[in-house]
């Protein structure tokens, strides 16, 4: 462990970390923007659920390196390529947890809401989604942690956040950057996960004391 190297490269490490965080956040935002309407459609028309889940499932199984290669002819070695790939990998868990969360809303609660005189959209946003929130956030947590790991791989095409440190380290047969990249990305994943747990506690005070989900 060469602390001198760390001192010399603090600025670089910082900007790589920010890039890492930015990619993670954007992938999640795009992923949710796509997954949410898909999940609503799958809830509204249950026959769509299996095909939607199947498609996102297949996408999820494509090895990441293969996916980069497939996209190269279209988007080249750009940040766009990285983001598209990262986004695709979030879809499965986001769609699945959103649908399962909504399906988990007890039938009698939905029925009561309807009988109280809720219209469909208001019922979705005021009753069903809030109740589904713990399960949806659980999905987001998995997606965030997975994405933070995956970002390091996008370093292969030049936009890898902390992953760039791995590549540097391997090229120079020098351990310090690898250790720094590894420790920071793990800490980042843990911190992000804890932050989401905190967010969930804040948003769902009612779920405290009920069975853990």
């Amino acid at each position, binding site marked *: 462990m060469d602390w001198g190297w760390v001192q010399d490269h603090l600025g670089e490490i910082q900007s790589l970390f920010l890039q890492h965080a930015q990619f993670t956040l954007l992938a999640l935002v795009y992923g949710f923007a796509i997954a949410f309407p898909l999940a609503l459609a799958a809830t509204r028309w249950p026959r769509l659920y299996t095909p939607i889940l199947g498609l996102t499932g297949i996408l999820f199984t494509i090895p990441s390196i293969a996916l980069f290669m497939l996209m190269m002819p279209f988007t080249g070695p750009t940040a766009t390529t990285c983001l598209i790939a990262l986004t695709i990998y979030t879809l499965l868990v986001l769609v699945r947890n959103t649908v399962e969360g909504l399906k988990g809303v*007890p039938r*009698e*609660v939905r*029925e*009561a*809401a*309807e*009988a*109280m*005189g*809720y*219209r469909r959209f208001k019922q979705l946003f005021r*009753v069903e989604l*809030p*109740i589904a*929130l713990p399960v949806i956030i659980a999905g987001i947590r998995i997606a965030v942690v997975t994405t933070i790991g995956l970002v390091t791989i996008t370093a292969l095409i030049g936009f890898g956040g902390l992953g760039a440190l791995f590549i540097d380290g391997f090229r120079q047969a020098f351990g310090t950057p690898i250790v720094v990249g590894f420790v920071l990305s793990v800490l980042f994943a843990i911190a992000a996960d804890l932050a989401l747990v905190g967010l969930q506690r804040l948003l*769902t*005070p*009612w*779920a405290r*004391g*009920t069975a853990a989900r």
Partner: protein
Amino acid sequence: MITFDSVSKRFADGTTAVDNLSLEVPDGEIAVFVGPSGCGKTTTLRMVNRMIEPTDGIIEVDGKNILKEDPAELRRRIGYVIQQIGLFPHRTIRDNIGTVPGLVGWDKKRIRERVDELIEVVGLPEDSGDRYPHELSGGQQQRVGVARALAVDPPIMLMDEPFGAVDPIVRTRLQEEFLRLQQEVQKTIVFVTHDIDEAIKMGDRIALLSQGGRLEQYATPEEMLAAPANEFVADFLGGERGLKQLALIPVRDVDARSGPVVSLEDTPERASEVAGDANTDWVVVVDDARRLKGWVSIDELNGQRNVGEGNIHAFSAEVSAGDSLRTALNAMVTSRTGVAARVGEGGVYEGIVTHKLINEELSKPAEPTAG
């Protein structure tokens, strides 16, 4: 008033849930829909707020065809209570109760005042408003369900086995409280249950339905018990029909006999004479203020100077005007005298209720009810 006019519901799979149903639920009354599972009682209830649409026929609420109304608007004017309660787990009790007022656009202050009022009306602990549903007991949750349904004071309530999920003791209490509440609020209620005893207790009228949604009889509980329309009705009412009927008749409806009465100062000879006139071997004992002291056996008065020195036994149970004849009958069979002593305010003796009086009451033809 809720009117069903030739209403039928056939489901896509060909089953008939409700078959050509016509009946009226008068204002301020509880109509209980009762029958075995598959008799279409819940389907019928859910057609009133358009959770289910009829295949044929017309349902009117206060003369207006509900199929021509906006379902959401209609539902906000109809209270809804179900067995599973369906409270919103993510909202406090206060917000649960305030749901419909919020939907119809009451301001915050008005909602808050109404919710406070309802928390008291349904007998919830004062501090329960800021709690979440899972922090309450089943009985308390059901009270919240009733409060939520009453929030905008809707003229009509639909109640589907509302007390079905709580234990028998809590159920009895909730039923009685609800009946008291209903005396004040006078809602027009469709109440569904599979329990005939609950139907008899809660209903101003009972609609007894059989498999496939056929209406077998629509009558007051008294009429139905006294004159079941057919064998199905009689079977469904079950054994002990006489006892169930007695449970509906208050003691005040029969003229209590004065019975053999003596006071504490009367002599054994006088007591013996009174008993002889009444053809009994015991007499009722009252004090100067005619308060009931109990009864004495004539044999046990031998050698005493007056009745007060005798061995006065308490009646096993005393009944009052508001008790049912069933309670009176129970008092009779557990008392050596074979009669129930009726007392009024301050324990004042009002007379005795005898087997003969009960027999007479049961053999009276059922009185047709108004409406």
